């Protein structure tokens, strides 16, 4: 699960476990969440989710809601801790050989599925085979293609071999483990989606499944036998509320305990005393950035000076202040500031319209006919930015950029299109000049799929058709090493190349703005966001609200 490409339109929630969030976390916290009250079992935790889950086998779903629920029901062999280090989950320990080609897992003993059957290495092998099976409709198959052999040495020991070093070998095994005894025949027949497991899942995780009413709610209860200890919150209810406005009203009425806010709700509408007493607000950069991308097959944008000129013409801080009300961070490349792969020393393009004009003039764009629009060979510099409908944030960004580019003599039109049509008819067919979209990023810096020149096919992700031999080489080197220091060198250089090239103009990382009911304690903001230690969250006995649970 390295590269998480997801449109922000589908609202990014954060996933507990592997795809953690954030780096620097700021909790607007008056100290309440740490004050007094000893850990106690009980209470119900109610979470608002804007979208319904798609299924309960997260290995074959891709929406954030399914992964969030799945993360509580299932476990992987490994997971990310608060500092984003990989630690054991179902695996007690592991060993990676010096040449990075052999990975040996020792599994925890006495782990049981929710139905009482023991969890063994056979389940791991089964999960691996399921992911590879061409009949399994999963998006995560590529993770497992690098594996050349998998041997079960004993019920609690596995050896996995790779043909060449694979940077994400360990991270791959954060994939949720599936129960062989319940799914074998369904996988074999290619009917995994129809398995009862997809409606009433049996996992090993900290919570057991109780109910999923499509479009209404998902209910989980604590698994007292979980190997990391019984979770404090005894019941978790995900309420599916498709309207952001309704979620906000539910928060005001204390009907939900956990939800994400919009920038305006965070800065203006939740600053009154009663709200700040009832909830603790958190803020940290999300794992997604917004960009202005160009079709590099278009000769106008193929010229690097033009893209650099645009970078100078756009004031990123203005976008953050105007659209996100300051709740975001400038992006200088595709990596989040303060993660290990991030390189702060890359060429930057401060807002400088004069320099932008000079660069465009160098590239041959001059206003020959005096109409205020630059032209070259009699053709005025005019193009259309496409973005998806229903995302106000991107529309506003487009409008500000339109204004800024107009100031350097470039005429921009904006067109918003419904998501499915935008992708199929315009992005995949390369019928666009420029786009404003977002990329979600994972915790591993491998972004081969987005930037490598071999990935520019119609169904692939390099839809801007970026091709730079040096970037290609760095992407190949970066994913083929398992030593962080070596990888860091490659990715540092990659970021310099991308900054210099500006294949897209990296605009910003917006902040995730979750709020949690102040009666819930034990939340420790970290570089991995807040959800990573959900099973240690608790409500002191005297403040428990839903005693029936």
């Amino acid at each position, binding site marked *: 699960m*390295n*590269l*998480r*490409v*997801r*449109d922000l*339109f*589908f609202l990014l929630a954060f996933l507990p476990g592997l795809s953690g969030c954030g780096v620097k976390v700021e909790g607007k916290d008056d100290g309440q969440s740490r004050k007094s009250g000893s850990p106690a079992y009980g209470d*119900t935790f*109610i979470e608002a989710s804007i979208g*319904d889950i*798609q*299924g309960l*086998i997260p290995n*074959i*779903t*891709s929406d954030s809601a*399914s992964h969030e629920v799945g993360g509580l029901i299932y476990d992987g062999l490994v997971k990310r801790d608060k500092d984003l280090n990989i630690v054991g989950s179902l695996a007690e320990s592991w060993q990676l050989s010096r040449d990075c080609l052999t990975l040996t897992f020792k599994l925890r003993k006495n782990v049981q599925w929710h139905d009482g059957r023991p969890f063994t290495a056979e389940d791991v092998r089964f999960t691996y085979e399921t992911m590879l099976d061409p*009949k399994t*409709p*999963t*998006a*995560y*198959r*590529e993770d497992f293609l690098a594996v050349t052999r998998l041997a079960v040495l004993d019920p609690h020991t596995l050896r996995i071999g790779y043909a060449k070093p694979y940077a994400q070998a360990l991270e791959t095994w954060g994939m949720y483990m599936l129960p062989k005894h319940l799914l074998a025949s369904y996988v074999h027949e290619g009917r995994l*989606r*129809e398995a009862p497991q*997809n*409606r009433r899942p049996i996992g090993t995780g900290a919570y057991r499944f109780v109910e999923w*009413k*499509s*479009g*209404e*709610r998902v209910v989980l209860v604590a698994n007292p036998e979980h190997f990391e200890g019984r979770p404090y919150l005894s019941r978790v209810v995900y*309420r599916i*509320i*498709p*309207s952001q*406005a*309704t979620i906000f*009203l*539910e928060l*005001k*009425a204390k*009907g939900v305990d956990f939800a994400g806010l919009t920038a305006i709700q965070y800065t203006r509408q939740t600053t009154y005393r009663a709200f700040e007493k009832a909830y603790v607000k958190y803020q940290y950069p999300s794992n997604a950035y917004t960009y202005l991308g160009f079709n590099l097959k278009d000769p106008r944008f193929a010229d690097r000076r033009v893209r650099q000129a645009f970078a100078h013409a756009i004031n990123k801080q203005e976008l953050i202040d105007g659209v996100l009300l300051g709740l975001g961070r400038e992006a200088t490349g595709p990596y989040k500031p303060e993660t290990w792969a991030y390189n702060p020393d890359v060429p930057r393009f401060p807002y400088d319209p004069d320099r932008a004009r000079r660069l465009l003039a160098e590239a041959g764009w001059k206003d020959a006919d005096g109409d205020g629009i630059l032209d070259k060979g009699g053709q005025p510099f005019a193009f259309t930015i496409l973005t998806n409908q229903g995302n106000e944030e991107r529309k506003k960004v487009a409008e500000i950029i339109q204004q800024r580019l107009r100031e350097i003599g470039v005429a921009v039109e904006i067109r918003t299109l*419904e*998501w*499915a*049509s935008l*992708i*199929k*008819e315009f992005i995949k067919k390369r019928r666009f000049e420029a786009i404003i979209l977002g990329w979600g990023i994972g915790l591993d810096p491998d972004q081969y799929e987005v930037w490598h020149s071999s990935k520019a*096919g*119609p*169904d*692939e*992700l390099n*839809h801007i058709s970026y091709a730079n031999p040096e970037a290609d080489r760095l992407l190949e080197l970066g994913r083929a090493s398992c030593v962080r220091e070596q990888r860091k060198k490659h990715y540092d250089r990659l970021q310099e190349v991308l900054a210099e090239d500006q294949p897209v103009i990296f605009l910003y990382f917006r902040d995730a703005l979750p709020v949690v009911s102040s009666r819930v304690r034990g939340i420790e903001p970290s570089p991995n966001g807040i959800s990573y230690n959900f099973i240690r969250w608790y409500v002191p006995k005297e403040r428990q609200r*839903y005693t*029936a649970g």
Partner: protein
Amino acid sequence: MIPYALRRVALAIPLLVGITFISFLVIHLAPGEPVELQTGDLGIKSSAQAIESLRKLYGLDQPLYVQYWSWVTRLARLDFGRSFAPDGKPVLQKIGERLPITLFLNIIEMLLILALAVPIGVLSATRQYSVFDKITTVFVFVGFATPDFWLALLLMILFGVQLGWLPISGLRSPTWEFLSFWRQHWDFLSHLVLPIVVATFGGLAGFSRYMRQSMLEVVRQEYVQTARAKGLSEQAVIGKHALRNALLPVVTILGLSLPGLIGGSVIVESVFAIPGMGQLMVQAVFSRDYPVIMGNLVIVSTLTLVANLLADISYGLVDPRIRVGRRGRS
């Protein structure tokens, strides 16, 4: 009578085939592909091969006429297929999960609208241009012009947030299963109060104006004058003689709105987080879940067809001129 009915049924069959054809065509003409095949949501590392194999799984790699044929033949056996969503549920099950609540809400709403619109219409017709008439006219038109979601939010703020009398959204409280039997029902009903009020308020205008109009026409008829001349009380004149006749056109409109009962209102359902048919359809459209969209279209249009058929037949039943006329022409 029976040959007439049979003829109507026979005519309905090509129509039904046409419906399936158009449903299929419309959705396949719309740009875009099932969302799973798109880079947006599932794209994570979906290689070109993965996308290709999904296309194969859904049969989208076949030519359109092959896809249509296999869909229609399955449809003929009442097999609506499975959703493209990762839950892979049968379409009928998906609809079955969503239909009861939508149907329940819409029926209550319809009954309420009738219970309010008929007296309002009658009273404002019999007291035309009176203060009551003017007030109700303003009232129902305000209802007609008020955006659903806006009214919904205002009511939620008042009754849910400020007063705390009613739940804001959803169908059940988070602790529903721990309530006693009667409390469970009360809890469920209290969740429905606001959505029903919002939908009723919006739908009141149409029916009450129809009722008023129809009543105004009827009270000018000669038989009403006759009834008055006989010395009947005003109550009997209006309540018995006029109302019955004035109701006829309203009942016709009511019949036509029956298929709408299973449609569901997208806005009301989204704002109140009610998992009904409206939401199902909208999500299916956004994610290009072809089997669900087409299944839904076919069911709704078939119901319309059946409603029309029943109306046709019952007209024939009550009005001999219709069946004789048809026979004469054919």
